[in-house]
């Protein structure tokens, strides 16, 4: 959808977001919506990398972890101001993305995907083994909530505003970027790299830029996650989460910002729907047993029959 339609949808959702916590008291539904936003952010980032730079990153979870741990360690262990730590986490992830991206982004396709995968797993091992700082596998507790003067973001409703506010802000900014000169250049690079270079576009720098932007957005979500859960440990940031993000983007349709959010919502809702519905169908209390197979089938089905994803159903996704 073009720029004007996006701005209308954005403002409509913003109104919904403002009102939602007042209408919904159940912390469970609010928490689910918060997790949708916290998954939507990295999904939007990954959608930019896959949809515009045309590359697959299998290590996006690492940037989520960097955001979470920088925020968590600085506030829980060193008592920093939450917002400063959040900013530093985003900056650290961006810097790491530049250092990692510079050599890796000259690769393409398979090798790039595998290099990002290796990078993601190495970061996971650092989290597990650098226990002096990260608390190792038993994690880090006591991450204080974010505060604005006396106002503390310590309830699900307030975190809902913060998480969805960040998501909508990022959607607005990346939406503007997609419609701008930079966005066109990105689509040109993805369309035909040689032709893009011939009109003066520095394709390597642009692809790296998207990778760094995606890392920053993902780290922001990581920081908010740390303050929301108040406890972080390495296990949610392993290779499995990078694949889950990939599923969200493929479901949503790469190169579609709203599609990525739709993909994130589908994945989070599917897990909870499975948990609620499944015990009625089978004796097994363990819904998760079926979850892994379901995600695998979904990923294969969408790649085979609907590569443009759920958002592909919408008019030409921007």
């Amino acid at each position: 959808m073009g720029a004007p339609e996006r701005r209308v949808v954005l403002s409509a959702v913003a109104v919904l977001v403002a009102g939602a916590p007042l209408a919904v008291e159940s912390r469970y539904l609010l928490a689910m919506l918060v997790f949708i936003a916290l998954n939507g952010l990295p999904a939007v980032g990954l959608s930019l990398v896959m949809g515009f730079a045309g590359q697959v990153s299998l290590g996006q979870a690492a940037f989520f972890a960097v955001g979470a741990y920088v925020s968590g360690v600085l506030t829980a262990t060193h008592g920093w101001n939450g917002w400063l730590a959040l900013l530093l986490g985003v900056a650290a992830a961006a810097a790491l993305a530049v250092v990692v991206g510079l050599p890796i982004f000259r690769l393409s396709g398979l090798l790039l995907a595998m290099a990002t995968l290796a990078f993601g797993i190495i970061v996971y091992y650092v989290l597990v083994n650098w226990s002096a700082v990260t608390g190792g596998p038993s994690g880090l507790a006591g991450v204080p909530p974010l505060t604005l003067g006396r106002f503390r973001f310590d309830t699900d409703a307030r975190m809902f505003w913060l998480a969805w506010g960040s998501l909508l802000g990022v959607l607005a900014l990346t939406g503007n970027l997609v419609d701008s000169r930079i966005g066109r250049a990105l689509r040109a690079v993805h369309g035909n790299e040689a032709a893009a270079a011939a009109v003066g576009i520095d394709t390597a720098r642009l692809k790296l830029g998207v990778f760094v932007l995606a890392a920053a957005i993902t780290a922001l979500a990581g920081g908010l996650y740390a303050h929301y859960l108040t406890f972080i440990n390495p296990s949610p940031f392993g290779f499995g989460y990078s694949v889950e993000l990939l599923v969200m983007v493929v479901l949503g349709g790469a190169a579609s910002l709203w599609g990525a959010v739709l993909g994130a919502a589908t994945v989070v809702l599917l897990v909870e729907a499975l948990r609620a519905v499944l015990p009625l169908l089978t004796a097994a209390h363990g819904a998760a047993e079926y979850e892994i197979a379901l995600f695998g089938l979904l990923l294969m089905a969408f790649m085979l029959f609907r590569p443009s994803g759920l958002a592909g159903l919408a008019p030409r996704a921007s």
Partner: protein
Amino acid sequence: MTAEQIAQYLISGAVVGGIYALIALGFVIAFGITRIVNFAQGEFVMLGALAMATLSARGVRAPVAFACSVVSVAAFGALLYRGALQPLTRAPALAVLILTIGASITIRGVALILWGTDPLAVPAFAAGPPVLVAGAVMVRQGFWVLGVAAASFVALWWFFTRTYSGAAVQACAVNPLAARLMGIRVDRVGVLAWLLAAGLGAAAGAVISPITYATYDMGLMLGLKGFVAAVLGGLVSPPAAIAGGFLLGVVESLAAGLVSSAYKDAVAFVVLVLVCLAQVLGALPWRVVEEG
């Protein structure tokens, strides 16, 4: 750092290296012919191990159970290629990669539903205490691992160089179009390639299962290590992949023994990043072949 210790690291490294070599060979054969990096290669290893566990639990003798496991998983691999992957031959390589990731998750999920989460024990092929080799201890099953690996390499070498269909497969690897012009049914050769790749993976899984047990989620890490070994060998040449497998197994074991065991698994991924960087700087003596 006594000689026995070094010998011990080399021996256990070689045994695990044999497993990586088998898996890497599976990657190279599948990629060489169908230009697909099969992210689900590790799951064939898991299926081989679980099939072995199920059959031996029902009293089937080791050699028969081994053969059945390898054949059934090989057939499954061919079916997976024919059904899900062949229709996508013209799709971009990344779409196919994501499809194999989906396949890997689906296989793992179904294995979880069928076999549950508990590890299943598998009796060793031959009973008896471990053997001393140059001061280092080697489990009897380790001989079976190296034996199966060696037998597979020789069999495949004979198949590729001494038989007509072997030559046909090689022709497809070199130039699919030319092979098609020569009347070789390239798509049937693709199915054969995946049959071999899945069979090799299953063989690795079946022969290592007495040492590592069989669990639904053992495939991922073994598959990734196999891929690193294949990339070390340039993703194209079978002998280089075998060498890459053994090299990775030994390097890991030495790193755990000499440096620190905490980073044992990370070694493989640091190696993968280094290979990718060398590829970028052109420092590699051999090019890691990109997708088609």
